[in-house]
């Protein structure tokens, strides 16, 4: 199938324009912040405690503050709508918090040493579903991703990880049950030694040929 090059203009993009201005102002003032922020001991302790508390609460893992893109209703499948439900930025702090959450949820013993604390990496997690109940391998059709920083410099994802697909049910616009395969595609960027600005655009193409361009301001995310 020929890829359709569709620019997804998410709601968040509009909101980001204001913060982009603020970020540019920071750069103009001589900010030397890198693409990632190092985690100090306090951050790691905080991530561990937060993850454990979230697991104990059994209310799911909140990512709202880390979303670059999301559909308003992830229960419903709409004709012609991209199969991507959400795109989340995974900062070093957030990834450490997720590690703690996921380990605690499994009842595993762990300490700060077991948490993911790579402070030179950024991850982007794409939550998506297949077009139909037969398309179990839909994630294999996601392209790799790139980050384009202010000034046009481009960095490609160092790795792409695809989760196993699990079958789940959705509703169509009439409320009928529709089964879809569900999974995540995780793009990991290695930003070691790079002196990148805080404002960039994530670009990737999903299983159906929709190209996403999602601007973000790294400064907004702990």
């Amino acid at each position, binding site marked *: 199938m020929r890829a359709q090059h569709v620019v997804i203009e998410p709601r968040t993009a509009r909101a980001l324009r204001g913060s982009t201005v603020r970020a540019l102002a920071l750069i103009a003032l001589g900010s030397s912040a890198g693409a990632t922020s190092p985690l100090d001991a306090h951050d790691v302790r905080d991530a561990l405690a937060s993850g454990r508390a979230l697991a104990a*609460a*059994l*209310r*799911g*893992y*909140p*990512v*709202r503050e880390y*979303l670059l893109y*999301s559909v308003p209703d*992830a*229960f419903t499948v709409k004709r012609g709508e991209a199969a991507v*439900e*959400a795109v989340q930025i995974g900062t070093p702090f957030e990834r450490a918090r997720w590690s703690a959450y*996921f380990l605690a*949820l*499994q*009842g*595993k013993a762990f300490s700060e040493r077991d948490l993911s604390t790579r402070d030179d990496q950024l991850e982007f997690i794409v*939550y998506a579903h297949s077009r139909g109940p037969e398309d179990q391998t839909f994630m294999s059709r996601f392209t790799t991703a790139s980050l384009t920083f202010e000034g046009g410099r481009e960095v490609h994802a160092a790795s792409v990880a695809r*989760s*196993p697909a*699990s*079958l*789940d*049910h959705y*509703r169509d616009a*009439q*409320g*009928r*049950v529709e089964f879809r395969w*569900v999974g*995540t595609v995780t793009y990991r960027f290695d930003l070691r030694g790079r002196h990148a600005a805080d404002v960039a655009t994530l670009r990737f193409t999903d299983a159906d040929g929709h190209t996403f361009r999602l601007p973000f301001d790294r400064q907004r995310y702990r």
Partner: protein
Amino acid sequence: MTRFRLAHVTSLLALSALGPASHGWTAQVQTVGPTQQELNASASREGDWLMYNKDYLGQRFSTLRQITPQNAARLTPVCQYHTGEVGSFQPGPVVYQGRMIITTPHSTYALSATTCKTLWTHTYTPTNLEPFPANRGVAIMQGRVYRGTTDGHLLALDAQSGKLVWDVKVADSSQGYFLSAAPIAWNGKVFIGEAGADWGAKGHLYAFDARTGRKIWTFDVIPTGTQEGADTWDKPTTAAHGGGSMWTSFTLDPMKKQLYVSVGNPAPDFAASYRPGRNLFTNSLVVLNADSGKLAWYAQQVQSDYHDWDTSAAPTVYDAGGRGYVAVPSKSGYLYLYDRASRALMHKVKVTTVENESAPLTTEGTRFCPGTLGGVEWNGAAFDPAGGTLFVNSVDWCSTLQLGQVRYVAGSIYTGSLNGFGAYDPIEKAKGWVHAVNARTGSVKWKVQMPTPMVAAVTPTAGGVIFTGDLNGDFLTLDARTGKTLYRFPTGAAIGGGVVTYEVGGKQYVAVAAGNASRTLWRTTGAATVVIFALDGGR
């Protein structure tokens, strides 16, 4: 799947030589029955088996005593009734005045309970999606036959002719709802509830006017708003697709006009973090006023479930040692005995292997027992009042579920099973149990491990035997005192339905629904068939 709708009768060679049975179905057909009086007396009516579990209390005990441990080896097939269909076959046959009614997912068959001769057939054509084609049987009352359909309708048929009397759409099957349970009928009402939790449905129990099909009341088994139990869904929005299926049938205490309902698992099945809270009334016994549908009381067997441990089989109401009990079997592997007056849990009896019941799911996979196809499935316990004994079949088969981040919903992500309903242990390890439990103390009198999962009904009699069957297709007669197998007959088709006994013309018959074929889950085969037995073939 290709389905064959030609129903025909095949007498066994042994029977063919004997000629027609002496007691045909046409002799005393009473089209206006069974009356409410007859239904109220169903436990003691030796000639009939009037509802899924024989009587309103769900005891399944027959007072017939012709077949005993001493003569059970003389049981011989009288006839077989082949529906000509292949697939799910789990009905509890009902028998009234010598005629038997059974169901398949789409068809209803009336046949002679002594000769297997076809009386009539009604075939329903679904008008909407069929989430899960299964049906567990009918209710009969005052000349009518009531059954649910795979696309969420409730039908009333004329008991004499099989012609459709009314057809009511109960629920929208395109939203995951269907009616697999055998309804029960009482006092002018028909009670039925939906299944569909695993498809994201939200269950309801209904009472319909038996004469017209008009809906009389609805009870939401997933409470919302100001309904009692709504506060057990910490995130109320998750109750919208909260699950709660009614899979099998229902129990009723006519004296107290109370309806006993077993409610299945919450949805999504394995993502407990998606729906924090106890998730009432999933995995619960719910007791309602049968006239009004108002909640009387409830008892939850498994809260915040993440193993697919439904309370699916109908409960058994009985008295023992001067106390009123209700026995509630569960896929969790336990038989729960409650005091009906105090509503206290008196005993929790393990009836299969239970391991890792509270262990969290892990990415590497967590093996737990019973697995998602384990414990007590759709057929529940039976009660022998003379011996004060509960008999119950169970499945001993474990599963391994792998945890993963599976779904984004409204600003959060949820974890659950990455491998569907899990990886089952090798089929060779799938076994079953028959337990005899002291109905008052909860102690196990005896237990027998069986070579296959045990999902068929179990039927004790005053003759001191119990009838059941296994997934190898063996019809079994066991000694009620010891569990020893007295008689075994290979029907050639996996037994996952009802096993009933009744008397016609002075002879005790036993009928078994065999042929529950499931190539994906249970890996069982065989065509949907009813086999009828009697001592010496009914001669």
